[in-house]
């Protein structure tokens, strides 16, 4: 749903970066998003395609990379990535404490790089 407004922001940033480097033809771009960022990459890709119809960016390919959620155990400080099954009760591999860990990463959404000429 809001992937459309995210795609708008994305296109604006790509435009700024291309202007900065004097580039005119966009081939591809890479998005990095966190495991719990609530982004649906297919929706983002579709939104990008829709918004770039008949524009210079039309046809550019989107690559994605997912960053796993990383938490820091509230008991012993050990950092770990819970498995997909362990998303609510997350036993620390070091001390087995299950709840209340601090989320260090997993919520990000950024454009990593572009391929252009």
């Amino acid at each position, binding site marked *: 749903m809001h992937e459309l407004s*995210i795609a708008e922001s994305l296109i604006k940033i790509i435009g700024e970066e291309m202007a900065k480097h004097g580039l005119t033809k966009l081939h591809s771009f890479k998005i990095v998003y966190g495991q719990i960022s609530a982004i649906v990459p297919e929706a983002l890709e579709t939104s990008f395609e829709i918004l770039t119809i008949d524009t210079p960016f039309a046809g550019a390919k989107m690559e994605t990379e997912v960053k796993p959620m990383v938490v820091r155990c509230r008991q012993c400080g050990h950092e770990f990535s819970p498995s997909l099954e362990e998303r609510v009760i997350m036993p620390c591999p070091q001390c087995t404490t299950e709840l209340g860990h601090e989320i260090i990463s997993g919520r990000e959404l950024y454009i990593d790089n*572009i391929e252009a000429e």
Partner: protein
Amino acid sequence: MKVDVVRNILEANDAVAADLNAALSARGILTLNLMSSPGSGKTSLLERTLTDLKDEFNMAVIEGDCQTENDARRVAATGARAVQINTAGGCHLDSSMVRDATEKLGVDGVDILVVENVGNLVCPAEFSVGEDFKVTILSVTEGDDKPEKYPFIFAESKVMILNKIDLLPYVNFDVNRASGFARSINKDIEIFALSATTGEGMDAWYDWLRRERAKKKK
């Protein structure tokens, strides 16, 4: 050629939100982003809070809905200042909309500003609107596994309000289970179980408001 960018896609919204928060904070205003599914009790909570605390704080509200001015009218009936944003189908408020609304509202003398977001447990969590804290309401008729199903909004929130506790005898809602899920995703989340309709449990919520507002005034 490959160009490294590494820019947060939501940076434009975040920049406006940061500026707005700085401007509101400079005036000592505590700003909250109130979120939940449709029908969880955001407006009812505000009606009771605004009524009970009207002699203590000058509170103002920015209402967000796809359509209608219903909520702004309900809030204004308590005597508080309110403006309505209609998104015409948009699923969340963003910081530009809220910034424009604060200008329309006028925040002179306001102690606490509440932005009541569009009813939605997904999208609003991603968009800062200039708030100090996000407050998410989960009502006991919605199922106690919602923090597990919608982790992002609860991970981002400072407060989870479990509303409609007067209905607990009639639903299968385990308060400890919902609280446990929320704490596993957010160790610092404050949880207040209350009923905006009967008034039960409101004191802990009011005390939190008082504490946080006092911190802003310093």
